[in-house]
């Protein structure tokens, strides 16, 4: 249980509680809380005599709250371009990398996804394609296979607002044959795909339910959810497309104005430690970025693991994505699925 | 021709029987009044006829057809509700026009009829008012107008004039009677005003706890109630409980102890001792004892007594007189009332005593 760690008053503005114990406020998604409490938060609390208080919600919600400063969050977990948004809005405290003793154990891609000033990625996952072979004839090996007639009226794609949305724009640009990103070509390509799309999903649960009910044959999805897909469709397959899967990068950062900067840095370092990374991986909570973590095949099932895969992931330029998002969203709204 | 007949009808609220094996017949074009004490089932009878209540048993025939299960709106009966039941969202005009419009009448004609009816109930100028903005009597008149204007096959009136002043009440009852007769409508009428019932009706039914106790022409009922209940109800407040008969000066006399009473029997009545003599307060006469000659004192049909209470009634005074035969109520017109405490002689005119079943 984790109930004991939560400040019942919800008053996090003092930075400490009645018994003078420090409080570390962490803003995160709110999944696998049981595991995180036991293996990540509680050991840290004990070691540093600190109380960890959680604020949970999705990226956008939590980002909005730190923007308004309604609660004094010390650490925030964000994925992909939400971290970049936080940086653009000057909400994050530059990090002192010298404090992160475990940094050299992690993959390059995870070290400084948003630049040296900001926090590292504590997990990197891949976005590939999952499908139901019973409904799709032939092997699926490439992003371009989504455009094949097998997927006609059988496909789901992430909505532009989903984490994977911008990745699909990049993928479409590449499928259209461009080495350099070509926005127009990408949208033309996506537009061609539109008739095949049954539904653009914005929640992974929709994907899982649709494939389970055979409303769709497949579509792009993060590897970490594949075990759920298999539970629904035992014969389902997950592929890393030949052009390369996309990296879903989740970072942890210190929020500007935190009173507990050093403690926060220690926590980040703790999050990157082999110990935590290995436990998380084995519990299938997060794919490890720590190169020292060694997993059996079975332990690696359903998580993104191994230098060969991780080092080949495509990583979008977050600043560029962020800048482009208003335009992409608008074009996507107008040109696709309308 | 019998237009309406209720045959062995029973009605109950929950499991509480209100009407039991109720029978009623009414000729076409006639107006029947239901008279009876509060709670005896008058409204229930009207609601049954209107179709608002479902009978537990029995049959309701109208115009030769079985109406027992016919829906309310197929009946074309007009109903004036005891509680008015005006449509609060409609103006006086629209309340009255409601039924006409349902009959798809042209607006011009609707207007003509509504205005004429409002004229009859003296509500010209009130067309635009809403029910909440009317006095009690005005609401009641709207309710009457609303039911009359559709010229229904049968009119059901539940105390339609209870909230009107005496003059208006007379005017309205004359109007109702006129319209009813002119248009040949049949009607069942409930009112507590006996004069109203007697003056407006072709037939009067006196009800007692869910049954009709006597049904007849107004004059018959008024003059010759058949039972004590009816007699009491229509104002024969004084009763003589006879204990035997004897031969008197002018023929057979009924007796109570030493007192002898000359009584005119109605057709069909025997001398069997199953009757009470009933007499109205206004048919009794009292004279202060001092003003009587000895001869007068010795006549039959007289009882001496003492005035206990005297009440002014407008036209007459009412006296409570205590006698050896019990208390009697006497209404008598006089300029200077007899004061309480005075000794008086009560006279019971032989032709005013009605023999009623006990």
């Amino acid at each position, binding site marked *: 249980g984790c109930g004991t760690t939560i400040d019942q008053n919800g008053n996090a503005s003092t930075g400490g509680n009645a018994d003078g114990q420090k409080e570390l406020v962490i803003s995160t998604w709110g999944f696998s809380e049981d595991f995180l409490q036991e293996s990540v938060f509680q050991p840290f609390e004990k070691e540093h005599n600190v109380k960890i208080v959680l604020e949970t919600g999705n990226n956008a919600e939590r980002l*909005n*709250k730190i923007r308004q*400063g*309604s609660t004094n969050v010390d650490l925030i977990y964000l994925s992909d371009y939400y971290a970049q948004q936080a940086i653009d809005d000057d909400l994050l405290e530059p990090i002192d990398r010298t404090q992160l003793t475990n940094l050299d154990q992690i993959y390059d891609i995870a070290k400084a996804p948003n630049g040296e000033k900001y926090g590292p990625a504590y997990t990197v996952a891949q976005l590939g394609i999952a499908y139901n072979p019973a409904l799709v004839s032939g092997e699926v090996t490439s992003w371009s296979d989504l455009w094949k007639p097998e997927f006609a009226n059988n496909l789901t794609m992430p909505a532009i607002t989903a984490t994977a949305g911008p990745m699909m724009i990049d993928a479409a640009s590449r499928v259209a044959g461009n080495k350099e990103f070509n926005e127009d070509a990408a949208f033309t390509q996506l537009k061609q795909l539109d008739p095949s799309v049954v539904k653009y999903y914005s*929640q992974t649960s929709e994907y899982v339910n649709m494939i389970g009910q055979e409303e769709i044959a497949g579509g792009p999805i993060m590897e970490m959810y594949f*075990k759920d897909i298999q539970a629904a469709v035992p014969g389902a397959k997950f592929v890393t497309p030949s052009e390369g899967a996309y990296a879903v990068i989740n970072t942890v950062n210190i929020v500007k104005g935190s009173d507990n900067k050093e403690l926060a840095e220690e926590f980040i370092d703790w999050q990157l430690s082999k110990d935590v990374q290995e436990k998380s991986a084995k519990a299938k909570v997060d794919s490890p970025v720590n190169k020292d973590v060694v997993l059996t095949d079975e332990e690696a099932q359903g998580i993104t693991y191994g230098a060969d895969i991780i080092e080949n992931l495509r990583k979008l330029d977050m600043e560029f994505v962020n800048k482009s998002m208003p335009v992409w969203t608008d074009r996507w709204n107008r040109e696709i699925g309308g | 021709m019998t237009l309406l007949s209720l045959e062995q009808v029973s009605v109950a609220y929950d499991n509480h029987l209100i009407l039991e094996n109720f029978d009623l017949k009414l000729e076409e074009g006639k107006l029947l009044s239901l008279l009876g004490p509060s709670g005896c089932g008058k409204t229930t009878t009207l609601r049954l006829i209107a179709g608002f209540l479902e009978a537990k048993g029995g049959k309701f025939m109208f115009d030769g057809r079985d109406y027992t299960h016919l829906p309310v709106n197929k009946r074309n009966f007009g109903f004036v509700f005891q509680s008015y039941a005006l449509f609060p969202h409609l103006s006086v005009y629209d309340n009255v026009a409601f039924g006409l419009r349902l009959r798809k009448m042209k607006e011009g004609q609707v207007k003509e009829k509504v205005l004429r009816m409002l004229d009859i109930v003296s509500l010209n100028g009130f067309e635009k008012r809403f029910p909440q903005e009317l006095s009690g009597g005005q609401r009641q008149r709207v309710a009457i107008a609303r039911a009359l204007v559709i010229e229904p096959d049968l009119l059901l009136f539940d105390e339609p004039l209870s909230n009107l002043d005496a003059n208006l009440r007379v005017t309205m009852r004359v109007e109702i009677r006129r319209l009813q007769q002119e248009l040949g409508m049949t009607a069942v009428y409930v009112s507590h005003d006996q004069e109203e019932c007697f003056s407006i009706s072709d037939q009067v039914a006196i009800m007692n706890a869910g049954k009709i106790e006597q049904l007849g022409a107004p004059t018959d009922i008024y003059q010759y109630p058949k039972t004590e209940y009816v007699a009491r109800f229509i104002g024969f407040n004084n009763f003589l409980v006879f204990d035997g008969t004897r031969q008197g000066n002018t023929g057979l006399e009924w007796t109570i102890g030493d007192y002898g009473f000359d009584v005119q029997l109605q057709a069909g009545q025997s001398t069997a001792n199953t009757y009470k003599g009933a007499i109205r307060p206004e048919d009794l006469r009292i004279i202060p004892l001092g003003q009587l000659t000895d001869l007068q004192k010795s006549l039959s049909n007289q009882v001496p007594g003492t005035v206990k209470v005297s009440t002014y009634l407008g036209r007459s005074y009412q006296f409570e007189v205590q006698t050896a035969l019990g208390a009697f109520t006497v209404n008598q017109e006089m300029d200077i009332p007899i004061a309480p405490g005075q000794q008086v002689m009560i006279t019971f005119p032989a032709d005013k005593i009605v023999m009623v079943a006990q």
Partner: protein
Amino acid sequence: MKEKHYGLAIFSTLVFIFLLGPLVIISVTSFGPGTVLKFPPDGFSLKWYQNIWAVDMFPKTFVTSIIISLLGNLLALILGVPAAYALSRYHFRGRDLLNAIFLSPVLIPGIVLGFTMLKYVLVMYQLPIYAGLLVGHTVIMLPFIIRVIGSSLSNFDFSIEEAAVSLGAGRLQAFFRVVLPNIRSGIMAAVLIAFLESFNNVDISVFMTGPGISTLPIQMLTYVQNYFDPTIAAISVVLMILTGLLMFVIERLMGGLAYFTKR
């Protein structure tokens, strides 16, 4: 008096099939053993019901939700009932405007309302999270309380209130002893709708919750973003059972919902 409406009865039955059909499917799937929603399920299991208690954020946020919704409801009643009464009892200039103002919280898209309240109530007015959450929920309940009770009062015969006052009742006594009991079906409707509106609210809560404080819908939303198992279905079933039990208790305690609906 019994009235017969066969057509209506059939129609109503169909509507209830429409309303309840999906719930039957949800209930059935909640007993499935798999980690994803499946209909018909592959077997029978109660593990998702156990999971509700295992993930202790569920009971915790459930309690928070109940407390916020009940307190907010009470507050909204205290603020709203007098207003509803005034708006239907008296006709005065500016009544339409006031009606519109009291309705306004439902006219504003929830997310904008939530964000705005975050900016002002939490940040500017510096209300503690719990208080802010309560205020937010009270704001969204107010229109339901005022307008639903108000529409009940629109057909109310105020002469019985006068009768009570003439018998010596103060304004408040007359209201509580005579007006209230006669519009209890309206009050019941208002309280119920407001409660559900608050209990299910996401838009406001998303912004007004904070470290350590969350509500059940937010928790459920968070959960379905990462898990696809029938726990959420099981929670729905538990909520329905709780509601049913509550109704049963009411039935036993005060002669049923009849108490709220009889006139």
